[in-house]
């Protein structure tokens, strides 16, 4: 049952997005997020959300998965939108006691909903189309300039890689331990709050013990293969920008410029600052 949990899962494929360099994907994602929040009127909002849908289509990942990731946050979307709906200023279109809905309230609610959903979708694209190792490789390369400030970028990236690598392993381990304790009559499903917390001890202790055991084993294995940190370490797969990255960069630059032009020359729908 724990196997069904997805944590930024990667789906192997051969789409345009899969072939892109992780660095370019991370950079463009950052810009995407910024521009999603820079949209000031409906034209720019439509440009951004349509382009998000385009990217989803290009990723060739099943729409069901995207639907699932949106479903996970749908309550936050509804809650924040509803809150904003009643916080507008200006002429009320509808009023009941202290609750009033104004045009600006409706606009803000729509903007918030579209922005949050786009944000989640575009971020899922990155994790769905980039393998965890590629992702950390990309982050490592991008953060490399920080080593000037004595930040150990390679070590941080290696820790991230290892952590990601061990999530499924530890989940499987948890499943096994839970079954073993259930077989001895452990009861995780009933009882009050305190009892349920206590019931976790027989799982957590063996899980920690095995996590440490695995950590020692891994450290030993890395050392026996002469791992000594990032210094002077070369890569088997060197990250390289290809035509896919340049095409993506060009297309998205056009879209981003379009958004800026819309913001500058068309009237803003939202109050400034939103």
């Amino acid at each position, binding site marked *: 049952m724990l196997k069904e949990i997805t944590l930024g899962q990667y789906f192997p494929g051969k789409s345009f997005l899969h072939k892109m360099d992780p660095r370019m994907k991370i950079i463009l994602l950052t810009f995407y997020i910024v521009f999603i929040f820079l949209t000031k009127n409906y034209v720019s909002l439509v440009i951004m959300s349509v382009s998000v849908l385009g990217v989803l289509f290009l990723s060739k990942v099943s729409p069901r998965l995207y639907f699932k990731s949106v479903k996970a946050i749908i309550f936050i979307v509804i809650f924040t939108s509803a809150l904003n709906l009643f916080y507008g200023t200006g002429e009320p279109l509808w009023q009941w006691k202290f609750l009033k809905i104004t045009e600006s309230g409706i606009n803000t609610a729509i903007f918030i909903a579209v922005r949050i959903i786009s944000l989640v979708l575009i971020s899922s694209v990155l994790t769905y189309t980039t393998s965890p190792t590629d992702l950390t490789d990309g982050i490592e390369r991008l953060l490399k300039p920080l080593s000037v400030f004595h930040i150990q970028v390679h070590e941080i990236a290696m820790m991230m890689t290892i952590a990601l690598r061990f999530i499924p392993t530890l989940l499987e381990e948890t499943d096994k331990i839970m079954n*073993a*304790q259930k*077989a*001895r009559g*452990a009861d995780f499903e009933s009882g009050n709050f305190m009892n349920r917390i206590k019931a976790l001890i027989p799982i957590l202790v*063996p899980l920690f*013990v095995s996590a440490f055991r695995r950590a020692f084993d891994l450290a030993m294995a890395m050392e026996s293969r002469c791992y000594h940190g990032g210094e002077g370490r070369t890569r088997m797969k060197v990250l390289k920008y290809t035509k896919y990255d340049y095409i993506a960069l060009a297309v998205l630059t056009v879209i981003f410029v379009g958004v800026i032009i819309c913001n500058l020359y068309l009237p803003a729908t939202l109050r400034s600052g939103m």
Partner: protein
Amino acid sequence: MSLLEINNLSFTYGTGTAFEKKAVNDVSLKIEQGEFIGIIGHTGSGKSTFIQMLNGLIKPTQGQVLLDGTDIWANPKQIRKVRFRVGMVFQYPEYQLFEETVEKDIAFGPQNMGLSKDKIKERVESAARFVDLKPELLKKSPFELSGGEKRRAAIAGVIAMNPDVLILDEPTAGLDPRGRDVLLSQIASYHKSSNNTVLLVSHSMEDISRIADRILVMNKGNMFAFDETKKIFSRGEEIEKIGLQIPQITKIMIKLGKKGYKLPSDIYSVDQAVYEIMKIRNSQVSKKKG
């Protein structure tokens, strides 16, 4: 009435998804009180899924498991009671130890059963005796024990529940040859003295053939064979075809049989083999003399 009656048991993983896979397919069999059953099969043959359905850790997608004639899932709220009666020792059980002392860890099962303090103490002591854990080890932390001792302590934790059926999944995995022999003989003597039913899952035909009354052979989720040990080995060649090892001595007997010696095909111990070969030799010698 059989102790365990398994009717058309099936389990399918990930129904309705692309990963749908039938792990166990339509298995039916009966196990009597006091039997020693060996279960053998490849990794992925469905034996782990099968045994986990016997104590209600996995709910079958089809079919039922009858324990003393009642379906174990008749009342899902009572499934814990089934788990006390059908004890399960998983692979590498030492990784489930968690208590401060070995004694407390062995007591975890009996405690969950709601037994009295005296009763628990008695159960812990007799379980420790079964697996030959010295009394002074009981006060130690389980993490201070050696690998073999940890394994035995974990097995004692299940035996302490005094289950009617004891299922062991590869209990000898990762032990040295001596540790393996010792553990197997302890399991055999537990079976003899308690007269409880024991199900032993193993990769090794050699191990199983020595102690099991009947053997269940699983292949690709199906029941390939379920019969007395002797009869299973008379089908030695078929079993080799599905990729399972048969005891070396059985292989030799099959090869000798092909060379034209008249030998029974159901031999799986060296003693039997010696006896049969001597019989042939003696008859040849007496022929020559005569």
